[in-house]
């Protein structure tokens, strides 16, 4: 097997200096090109021997100005950029933005579209957790995990590809629902995946959960106290691993999550291992939510609103009636103008609370689009966790926060 990354990692000793007392501190630069920082994160560590005494993450190596782009393009034009913020769970990002704009406009997607949105959101959560599990285990040394995780992730990407033609940057949601029909074989594909996946997950757990190396690398490492977790505004598994019950799907339900029967897994010790268990259990709950959606969903019905001025008119009526033709023309050329106001829509992303704060000034271009991305806020806990930890644990700590640099830096 030729995938070897442990050799030649470019951790460079950038500066070494002696202190006045007998202790010696060393400054160690990790990244921005480092195999286990999950992208272009850079961390400046101050070490005393093997122990970390200072940790300063340096962000912005992938700062692309997404919020500025949101202020200069029309509402519906901004959707593709939301894919590219958190690119391992693109449909969730679409969902958050679309829900925020729909709330601003005061419209609501039809029932069938809402169920499909939930399914796509949960599939995105699974895909994101699989990437997390693969890379996190790879960093800690369980190389083969990533091969298995990416194998199952391809099945999810196949579903996305069947639905919208793209694997990664899906751009699948529209104002008022979906603009594309649901392919006939899609429910079957989703059901197949729900049947296959639980077995595979047992396989992952048999590889990791009782593995002595995995346990010694994760148990008691990176403990976050519950009070500190709330104070640092952590969300997602970082918060729930410490035993705080805050899941946006349960606490402030959006879509039809209040019709679903699912549990919010909670950790007890708040260490890396608990967060691993929480995410594994979340995957199981996601599968159960997808199955419930498939069962409850009306089998046919509209996938998009047709009457609202905020929604692009459907294709056949554009071809048949003059009014819709005009409406389509104006919608495409000029865009739509929501009423003046501001909304904050939070959804439960795979990494935590994803909030979109959209301010409208009554023109077709948003006045301000703010992305409250979960991993940007969660990454603040890295200095807290790294304090006093060993150097080798830093990769485990970065992995457990589950960052994607596109959404950290935006």
């Amino acid at each position, binding site marked *: 097997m030729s995938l070897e*990354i442990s*050799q*030649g990692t470019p951790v460079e000793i950038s500066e070494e200096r002696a202190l006045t007392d007998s202790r010696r501190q060393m400054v160690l630069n990790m990244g921005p*090109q480092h195999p286990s920082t999950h992208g272009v994160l850079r961390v400046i560590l101050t070490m005393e021997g093997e122990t970390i005494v200072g940790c300063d993450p340096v962000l912005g190596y*992938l700062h692309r100005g997404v919020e500025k782009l949101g202020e200069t393009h029309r509402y519906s034009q901004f959707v593709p950029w939301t894919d*590219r913020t958190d690119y391992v769970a693109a449909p969730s990002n679409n969902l958050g933005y679309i829900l925020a704009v729909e709330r601003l406009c005061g419209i609501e997607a039809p029932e069938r579209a809402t169920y499909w949105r939930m399914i796509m959101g949960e599939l995105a959560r699974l895909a994101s957790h699989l990437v997390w599990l693969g890379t996190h285990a790879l960093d800690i040394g369980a190389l083969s995990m990533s091969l298995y995780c990416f194998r199952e992730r*391809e099945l999810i990407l196949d579903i996305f590809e069947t639905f919208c033609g793209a694997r990664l940057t899906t751009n699948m949601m529209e104002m008022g629902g979906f603009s594309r029909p649901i392919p006939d074989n899609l429910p079957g594909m989703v059901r197949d995946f729900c049947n296959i996946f639980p077995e595979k997950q047992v396989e992952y757990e048999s590889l990791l959960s009782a593995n002595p190396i995995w346990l010694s690398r994760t148990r008691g490492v990176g403990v976050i106290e519950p009070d500190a977790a709330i104070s640092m505004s952590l969300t997602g598994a970082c918060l729930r691993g410490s035993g705080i019950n805050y899941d946006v799907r349960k606490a402030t339900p959006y879509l039809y999550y209040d019709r679903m029967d699912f549990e919010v897994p909670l950790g007890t010790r708040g260490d890396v291992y608990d967060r691993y268990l929480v995410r594994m259990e979340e995957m199981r709950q996601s599968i159960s939510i997808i199955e419930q959606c498939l069962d409850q969903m009306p089998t046919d019905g509209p996938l998009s609103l047709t009457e609202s001025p905020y929604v692009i008119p459907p294709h056949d009526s554009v071809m048949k009636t003059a009014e819709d033709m005009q409406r389509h023309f104006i919608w495409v050329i000029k865009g739509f103008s929501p009423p003046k106001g501001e909304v904050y829509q939070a959804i439960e992303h795979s990494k935590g609370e994803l909030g979109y704060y959209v301010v409208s000034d009554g023109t077709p271009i948003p006045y301000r689009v703010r992305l409250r991305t979960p991993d940007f806020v969660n990454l603040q806990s890295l200095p807290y966790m790294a304090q006093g930890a060993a150097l080798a644990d830093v990769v485990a700590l970065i992995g457990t926060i589950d960052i994607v640099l596109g959404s950290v830096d935006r």
Partner: protein
Amino acid sequence: MGIEDRFEKSILTTSVDSVFNWARRSSLWWLQFGLACCAIEMISAAMPRFDISERFGMLYRASPRQADLMIVSGTVTKKMAPVVRQLYDQMAEPKWVISMGSCANIGGPFDTYAVVQGVDQVIPVDVYVPGCPPLPEALYYGVLELQNKVIRYDTIARKQSVDEAEAFREQSRAEAQAELGPRR
């Protein structure tokens, strides 16, 4: 110290080249270095379904000093550009660059204050792979194109062209200085 420092172009160097090129083409080791969304597709390409590593003899290395190929997968921001340049400079000759995705090619959808509009402003590029993100199959095609280029690699000519590039760089620096005055 390679053959390029000892010989002028001759029958000996071309036939040695062809042997070396065959070996280089069949074992392009790439720098494990992901920038943005395209990196996820690049990883997918290396994972079981697509398996670019085993098919093309490619192997990813974490250190630039062991790599022949740099796949620039993603957006190059102004903050990241000096790092990309430094990584490129650290790679040993001969080295090749694939620019993967619209962002690395031309800036992609991010025509903003923070993004370099194309990685070819920072480092020379051999093969451009379009797409946002390119499918793993598209990356395959890019690699195959690069292999066709590697097999024609000419050590002596490369040395001359590197010298020319250096001379051009010096010249344009001098011109710019003459025009703008010394750098502030």
